[in-house]
């Protein structure tokens, strides 16, 4: 199920909230947690019930290993490595088997058939989450939990599909703190605010930029210099509003149930270096890699008195793993390599400067690097990547940008507005208006990104008291989202 869908907003969420609050009102705390997990299974299995089997098996295997570590601590190492292999193996199979076959075919000129296995939703996330728990069990910093709290920890639907990657010790204590089960009006209101802010970012901004990005990448061989930078910048905005919007919704949803989930985005486009970018972008993933790969590996290097060598080796390993984790294509590995090299180079003092004129240089350098590498990230195929990079770095003009601007006609409101104008203006004006709309879109995005992020907006509203103006604005935006969402359903319907 998607957060940005009518079935979620009008059926699933209300039902889950009612059930949750009712059960907690009658102090059936453990049953309430079980109910939450049950609803989360429904949430997960909505599009494809078969994937529930994978989720259940994953939980069963990891929980059993945790139990075995508890029962037979002498064999902790064995159980740990078994779990590691099992988790990474399953993830590897679903995500990378075809990539593996493709490369074997390319190198050995064989023609093994691809399996076209469909990737189970969220498998990258719930696998990583359980690996973090397993490693903590191995290190002795996690207890063995009971099956109800463990299942709730893995399946809690706000964070199940795309994170944030929640640590067991930041959520399970909350599950067991029954004082949080009492309905909190203020927290609930905060949750709604954050959810709507996230929804707006996703539906009104990300999905609009997506029209430009998808149109462009589907016709990558037509791009010129200007249009390729427009596409790249559009993706920079699309990706941020999409992912951070989703995470805002996740945090908001968590609050509706009385829980605090970790923040994943802290205005990353304000970063002055790539290391800083990764602290602000997908913060929980960075936290995972820092805690479970970077720190142990660098610590080993320091102890072996090979700090300099490991200051190069460790970022390479971390970002290659990260690239690989993000997707099964050489473009992702190339993207990871770029991040690693930037990180290694950022160890120089220049990138730590945050004052004075150099501030603009470090900010713009970081931002431009981000735009370029995100274009690589979006490419997904090597030929797309070459296409967009060629467009960005060779000088050419063919007016493709106008066509890009017109891809915005996919938006129901823009289309409506333009249809209304169509008979009354010349073609040239028609095209100019589309470009104008696109420029306005970019301007809005730039302004939003340069100011407070969703969490900061919420905090400042709480500080001065939620204003009437804000409430009205939010309601209008929410309604606008719903109108736009109904467009999506219609579109999908026509596809059947």
């Amino acid at each position, binding site marked *: 199920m998607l957060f940005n869908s009518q079935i979620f907003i009008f059926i699933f969420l209300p039902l889950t909230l009612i059930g949750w609050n009712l059960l907690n009102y009658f102090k059936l705390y453990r049953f309430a947690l079980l109910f939450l997990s049950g609803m989360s299974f429904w949430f997960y299995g909505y599009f494809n019930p078969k994937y529930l089997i994978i989720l259940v098996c994953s939980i069963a295997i990891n929980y059993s290993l945790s139990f075995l570590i508890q029962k037979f601590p002498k064999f902790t190492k064995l159980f740990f490595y078994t779990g590691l292999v099992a988790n990474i193996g399953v993830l590897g199979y679903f995500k990378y088997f075809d990539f593996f076959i493709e490369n074997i075919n390319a190198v050995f000129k064989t023609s093994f058939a691809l399996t076209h296995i469909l990737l189970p939703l969220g498998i990258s996330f719930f696998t990583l989450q359980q690996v973090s728990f397993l490693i*903590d069990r191995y*290190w*002795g*910093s996690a207890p063995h939990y009971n099956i109800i709290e463990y299942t709730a920890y893995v399946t809690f639907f706000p964070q199940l599909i795309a994170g944030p990657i929640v640590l067991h010790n930041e959520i399970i204590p909350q599950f067991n703190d029954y004082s949080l089960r009492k309905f909190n009006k203020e927290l609930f209101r905060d949750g709604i605010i954050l959810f709507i802010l996230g929804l707006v970012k996703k539906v009104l901004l990300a999905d609009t930029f997506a029209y430009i990005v998808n149109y462009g990448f589907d016709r990558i061989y037509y791009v010129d210099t200007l249009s390729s930078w427009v596409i790249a910048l559009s993706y920079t905005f699309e990706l941020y509003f999409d992912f951070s919007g989703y995470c805002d919704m996740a945090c908001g949803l968590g609050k509706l149930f009385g829980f605090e989930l970790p923040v994943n985005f802290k205005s990353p486009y304000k970063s002055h270096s790539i*290391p800083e970018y990764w602290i602000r972008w997908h913060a929980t993933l960075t936290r995972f890699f*820092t*805690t479970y790969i*970077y*720190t*142990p590996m*660098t*610590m080993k290097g*320091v*102890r072996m008195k090979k*700090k300099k060598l490991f*200051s190069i080796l460790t970022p390479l390993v971390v970002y290659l793993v990260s690239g690989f984790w993000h997707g099964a294509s050489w473009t992702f590995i190339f993207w990871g390599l770029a991040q690693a090299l930037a990180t290694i180079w950022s*160890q120089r003092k220049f990138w*730590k400067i945050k004052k004075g004129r150099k501030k603009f240089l470090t900010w713009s350098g970081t931002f431009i690097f981000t735009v370029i590498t995100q274009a690589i990230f979006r490419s997904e195929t090597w030929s797309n990547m070459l296409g967009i990079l060629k467009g960005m770095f060779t000088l050419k003009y063919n007016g493709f940008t106008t066509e890009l601007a017109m891809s915005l006609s996919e938006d129901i409101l823009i289309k409506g507005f333009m249809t209304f104008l169509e008979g009354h203006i010349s073609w040239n004006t028609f095209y100019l208006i589309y470009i104008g709309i696109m420029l306005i879109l970019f301007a809005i995005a730039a302004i939003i990104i340069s100011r407070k992020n969703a969490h900061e907006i919420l905090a400042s509203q709480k500080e001065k008291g939620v204003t009437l103006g804000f409430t009205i604005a939010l309601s209008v935006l929410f309604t606008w989202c719903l109108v736009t969402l109904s467009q999506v359903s219609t579109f999908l319907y026509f596809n059947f």
Partner: protein
Amino acid sequence: MREEITRKLTDIFRDVFDDDELEINDEMTAEDIDDWDSLMHITLIGTIEDEFGIKFAMKDVVGMKNVGALIDKIAELAQ
């Protein structure tokens, strides 16, 4: 014993962060010093291990709450 550790630790902090005026206290965390990022943290731990002749468990390296907890851990390991 704790005072001795605190004194030695202060010297280490001053050396690692290149700041002769630096003072530490129990509540101090990585948020309190600008340069205290993950690499600095590991450098710090490495120096502490060398100076005190101890070895931290990985869960303590990643899970160190504050300087107070660090001092306690050093005291425990240096026994």
